[in-house]
């Protein structure tokens, strides 16, 4: 069991680091997908298969596609995806994230955490059942939020007559 | 309500073809080439051949060079035969056709005034090297008139009749003028 954990941990950390540090945008996106797969592996380790499958379906299936589409749409030339790399304030960023890590890890060490494993598994129909009985309000609110977000995203990103000319216009001027 | 029926109709056609290919006899058209062969079609044309009547030394061709001029890819080369004094003879000394260039269009057969060149039915002529072995010389091109009768009976008989008629006409005028 521990072997899987360490394997998955390295895989996920590599994916996350790659997503953040790589120069080529599409390589970042692909390592992000590796990261999502690693997280799904963790969920399976924690015996949450349903959430792992949902994670793969939503993140690897849809969010990564969305990110790749965005990269494709915002790159003027395919392949020219090397960018000026990191911003000049990256040392500050490194400092802040190191501080965050030390604070969190210190907090984890001092905390007395339950170490024994309760038996019994959470089955999918249990999740489904509680989702529609005790948690029905957040369930409905989420569905409204999703439709709102979807319509909003489409309206924002849509090419109307007005900004279509703007898009082509700009390019001709520069 | 007929949305989608077009799809079913299309699919039924292909299914019918599929089923018929097993049941109906003639529905599969492919000829399994090396084993089965398609029967010979008279006007089939492949590479040109020269025709001689009796002796291979006297082909019908009089080396008039019309076919060489007319040949689109220019793959015919003719050199007229010369006797000792250097006067041209009505016979080609060298008659080469480069089969790797020839596109078997049949123009040489059409323009030839002396019906000397015809398109052959023989197409299995593969060779190992492109240059020399596909450049057919006169000996390889010459074929007897009987072979022509064998592969293109109707055309051959018409041409023989025409030649014979020309022969008599010449004989008839010939004695007239000498007298």
């Amino acid at each position, binding site marked *: 069991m521990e072997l899987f954990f360490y394997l998955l941990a390295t895989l996920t950390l590599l994916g996350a680091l790659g997503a953040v540090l790589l120069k*080529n945008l*599409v*390589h970042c996106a*692909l390592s992000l*997908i590796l990261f999502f797969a690693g997280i799904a592996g963790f969920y399976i380790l924690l015996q949450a*298969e*349903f959430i792992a*499958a*949902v994670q*793969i*379906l939503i993140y*690897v*299936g*849809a969010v*990564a*596609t969305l990110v*790749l*589409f965005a990269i*494709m749409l915002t790159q003027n030339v*395919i*392949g020219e995806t090397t960018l000026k790399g990191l911003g000049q304030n990256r040392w500050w960023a490194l400092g802040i994230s190191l501080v965050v890590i030390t604070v969190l890890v210190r907090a984890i060490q001092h905390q007395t955490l339950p170490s024994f494993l309760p038996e019994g598994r959470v*089955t*999918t*129909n249990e999740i489904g059942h509680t989702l529609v009985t005790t948690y029905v309000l957040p369930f409905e609110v989420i569905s409204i939020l999703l439709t709102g977000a979807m319509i909003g995203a489409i309206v924002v990103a849509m090419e109307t007559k007005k900004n279509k000319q703007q898009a*082509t216009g700009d*390019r*001709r001027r520069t | *309500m007929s*949305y*989608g029926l077009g*799809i079913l109709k*299309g*699919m039924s*056609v*292909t*299914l019918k*073809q*599929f089923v018929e*290919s*097993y049941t109906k006899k003639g*529905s*599969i*058209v*492919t000829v*399994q080439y090396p084993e089965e062969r398609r029967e010979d079609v008279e006007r089939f044309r492949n590479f040109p051949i020269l025709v001689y009547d009796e002796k291979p030394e006297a082909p019908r061709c009089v080396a008039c060079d019309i076919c060489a001029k007319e040949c689109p890819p220019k793959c015919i080369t003719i050199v007229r035969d010369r006797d000792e004094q250097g006067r041209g003879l009505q016979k080609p000394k060298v008659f080469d056709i480069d089969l790797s260039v020839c596109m078997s269009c049949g123009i040489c057969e059409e323009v030839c005034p002396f019906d000397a060149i015809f398109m052959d039915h023989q197409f299995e002529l593969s060779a190992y090297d492109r240059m020399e072995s596909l450049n057919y010389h006169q000996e390889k091109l010459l074929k007897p008139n009987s072979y022509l009768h064998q592969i293109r009976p109707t055309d051959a008989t018409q041409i023989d009749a025409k030649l014979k008629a020309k022969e008599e006409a010449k004989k008839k005028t010939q004695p007239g003028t000498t007298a």
Partner: protein
Amino acid sequence: MERLDQLFVLLKKIILQFAESFLPAPLLPFLSILVSITAIAIFAPLTMMYLTWLERKVIGRMQNRFGPNRVGIYGLLQPIADGIKMLTKEDVIPLGADRVTHFLAPVAVVVPSLLLFSVLPFGRNMTAVNLDIGLLFFIAVSSIGTLAIFMGGWASRNKFSLLGAMRAFAQMISYEVPLVLSVVTVVMIVGSLSTEKIVEAQSGWGGLRWFVFTPWGFVGFMLFFICSVSEVNRTPFDIPEGESEIVAGFHTEYSGMKFALFYMAEFLGAFAYSAMAATLFLGGWQGPLLPSWLWFGLKTFCLVFTMIWLRGTFPRFRVDQLMSYAWKFLFPMGLSNILAAGIWYHTPFPLSFIFATWILLLSFIGLSRLNPTGTRLERRTYRFAE
């Protein structure tokens, strides 16, 4: 009969007993998983090879010609000849391509389509991995394939393959939605995501309890089958590798073994999707007389044959027709199918069929009337290269 039905299960038991003698005890569960994995690993490529043979024979026969019949009797060794040809072909990596993604793409395409096999119920208690979220796993893994195709298209760094990859992306996403909607109806009625329970729910009455005989089941089956044909990029939805327009789409720059992997993924996907369609709507391995795995094979074979039959009949969709067909026809049909299934579930027997068919017919006619067929592309406006 029982022994024949459980043939493969008994085979596995014999192997395990034989291995028990010399293997230490804790290794046994791994061994049983290993045995089913090797079974799939042998079964999948074999089916793929002989699906290619079947496809060439059937399409040949549909076009009044023999299929391959030179290599071996009836061309049975043709797939092996193709395999050798694929292996010996030189593996060209284009200069501009970035090696890592170019190399990873075929692997990332084949792995999901092999994973799909782990969840399929090949026969009575013959599912390789009996997940209780089997169906969700199937859909999640099939969405990974889309990404791998993009990787392949983008990595080979040429205009055609990128165009093909973007087309594949758009097509597979917009056809995944109706696919999931048609699966939702089955899950709603059966109440569980595991493929075993879905098949059990369709037993009884000698096959009349199959979902395909219910109104919503028939429409769901049509939706699922159409969407699976397009998920697998087969005609008439094979725009990503539309030979006529964009050379070979996303696998233009692949040759040799890598191209074989793309090809293999397509056929494994076709087989897995038809098997899932059979499980969901045609009662998996339910069947009166024959052993269960034979019934499963027969149904999947019929569905794969229809996929090939479609390929022999239809021309390719235009991209905008493809998109509008998915969003303007299949998606609303999926929604109305769920409504019909809900009503079917809660009304008593004679009424339920009438209501469900009435709703579905209404939505079918309405949608077909709403979607104007034969719309022309609007006049192309040309922008000169800046």
